[in-house]
């Protein structure tokens, strides 16, 4: 085999078809970038879910203490407080229980809403209920808390941040799905584009391939330049996509990924996505061009 001769033919083919080549490289790059973004969202959301659920506490809010102006008929007595705490600590699923007084709760409230000055200014300390912050061994088991103390005297409500997060993660899953669907559509159009540019290439080189067939060139010699052209477009497209994805990663980590969204901007997330992107980016065009030739370059 004469590698050098085959490569020379590839170069001629790429130059002759330069606009098609550029179009193929760009579609490959764009669809792969989208695939990469979908994967970053997917892997990032998984990581975020894992991280957040481990930090989550279930809050058991208590009624106002009997005798205070806010107290109603079902007010909280000291005995209630002790028995709720005892019940919580007695549950096997609970890792630890922290009592948060009205003053501590108000501090947390002010910290959490420090950006909404109006809200903080108009909320008196007395409006914040006392609570127990319960940390679970398995964050998915929050229902145990509700059933254990949800109706106990003195309990106002049991709140679980993971239900809010569940909706957030459902959202992430939908975004991922949507992006993957778009990616599939784009990859299909990439294949069709490569199919067409291969057909054009096969047509514009019918003289050469006709002579090759006549003088007894093997299928390999006839088809290799075309498949390598497709692969070259795939490699170039993947390269571009990798650069774009690094830019996306850099953008996320510098702007969006403050505090909560950190996992989306991490190298490890990108590192998960890149091998998939590169493998698809190189294999797909090669396979697409090979299949085209099976139909349009029969010996």
């Amino acid at each position, binding site marked *: *085999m*004469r590698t050098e*001769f085959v490569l020379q033919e590839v170069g001629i083919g790429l130059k002759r078809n330069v606009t098609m080549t550029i179009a193929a490289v760009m579609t490959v790059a764009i669809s792969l970038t989208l695939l990469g973004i979908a994967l970053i969202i997917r892997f990032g959301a998984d990581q975020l879910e894992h991280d957040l659920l481990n930090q989550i506490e279930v809050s058991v809010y208590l009624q106002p203490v009997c005798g205070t102006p806010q107290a109603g008929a079902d007010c909280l007595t000291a005995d209630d407080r002790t028995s709720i705490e005892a019940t919580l600590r007695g549950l096997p699923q609970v890792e630890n229980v922290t009592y948060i007084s009205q003053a501590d709760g108000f501090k947390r409230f002010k910290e959490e809403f420090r950006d909404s000055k109006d809200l903080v200014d108009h909320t008196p300390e007395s409006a914040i209920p006392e609570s127990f912050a319960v940390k679970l061994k398995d964050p998915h088991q929050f229902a145990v808390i509700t059933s254990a103390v949800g109706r106990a005297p003195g309990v106002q409500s049991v709140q679980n941040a993971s239900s809010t997060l569940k909706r957030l993660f459902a959202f992430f899953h939908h975004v991922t799905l949507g992006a993957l669907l778009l990616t599939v559509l784009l990859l299909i159009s990439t294949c069709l584009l490569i199919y067409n540019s291969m057909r054009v290439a096969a047509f514009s080189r019918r*003289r*050469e391939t*006709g*002579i*090759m*067939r*006549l*003088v*007894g*060139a*093997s*299928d390999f*010699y*006839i088809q290799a330049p075309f498949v390598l052209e497709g692969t070259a477009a795939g490699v170039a497209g993947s390269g571009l996509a990798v650069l774009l994805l690094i830019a996306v990663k850099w953008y996320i980590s510098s702007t969006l990924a403050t505090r909560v969204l950190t996992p989306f901007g991490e190298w490890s997330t990108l590192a998960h996505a890149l091998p998939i992107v590169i493998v698809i980016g190189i294999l797909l065009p090669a396979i697409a061009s090979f299949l085209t030739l099976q139909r349009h370059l029969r*010996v």
Partner: protein
Amino acid sequence: MIRFESVTKVYPTSTRPALENVSVDVDKGEFVFLVGQSGSGKSTFLRLALKAEIPTKGEIWVAGKQLSRLSHWRVPALRRQIGTVFQDFRLLPNKTVAENVAFALDVIGKPKHVVAKVVPEVLSLVGLDGKENRKPDELSGGEQQRVAIARAFVNRPRVLLADEPTGNLDPATSIGIMKLLDRINRTGTTVIMATHDSNIVDSMRRRVVEMESGHVIRDQSRGVYGYAQ
């Protein structure tokens, strides 16, 4: 060298057979003219010998191989033993004379040093010394056909198939091409040439196979083009 045994070829788009029950036997080293009107089946005959078409019925042997038993991947090996020349030359316009000839060796993976040695030899044989670096459109028709013959012969095939090689050339130039084909035939290469050119056939006095509507109607050694007994 080439044997057709009761070969029939019907193209899918046509009801009338292009060849019907044709049996021809060509020995090693023979020079055979295939004559007949357009559509008589001459080109189909040549395409079948190349395994560019598959016969509907019958068996074909070329260079010792039975074509119906030749698997797809061994067809290239068959074609390396057959040189082919056409009326329209089929040269690559972007390549020089030498590159056009070298192309036939490059694409079958011949080593570079072999190509560098063999190409000037064959160009000299066909009388194109000094024109190695011309492009086909800088050459006359006769010279272009010489390049095509050089390309067909450079790999020293056992059979040379020529489909109206003088069809686009004037009589004087045609004589030069025929001399060249005769020389190639004298090296032991079997030559089968389809042609309309009665002057050439009459002057060469070689075997003539005449075809009409897919049938062989005459097979004569040392024959002439037209009717002759």
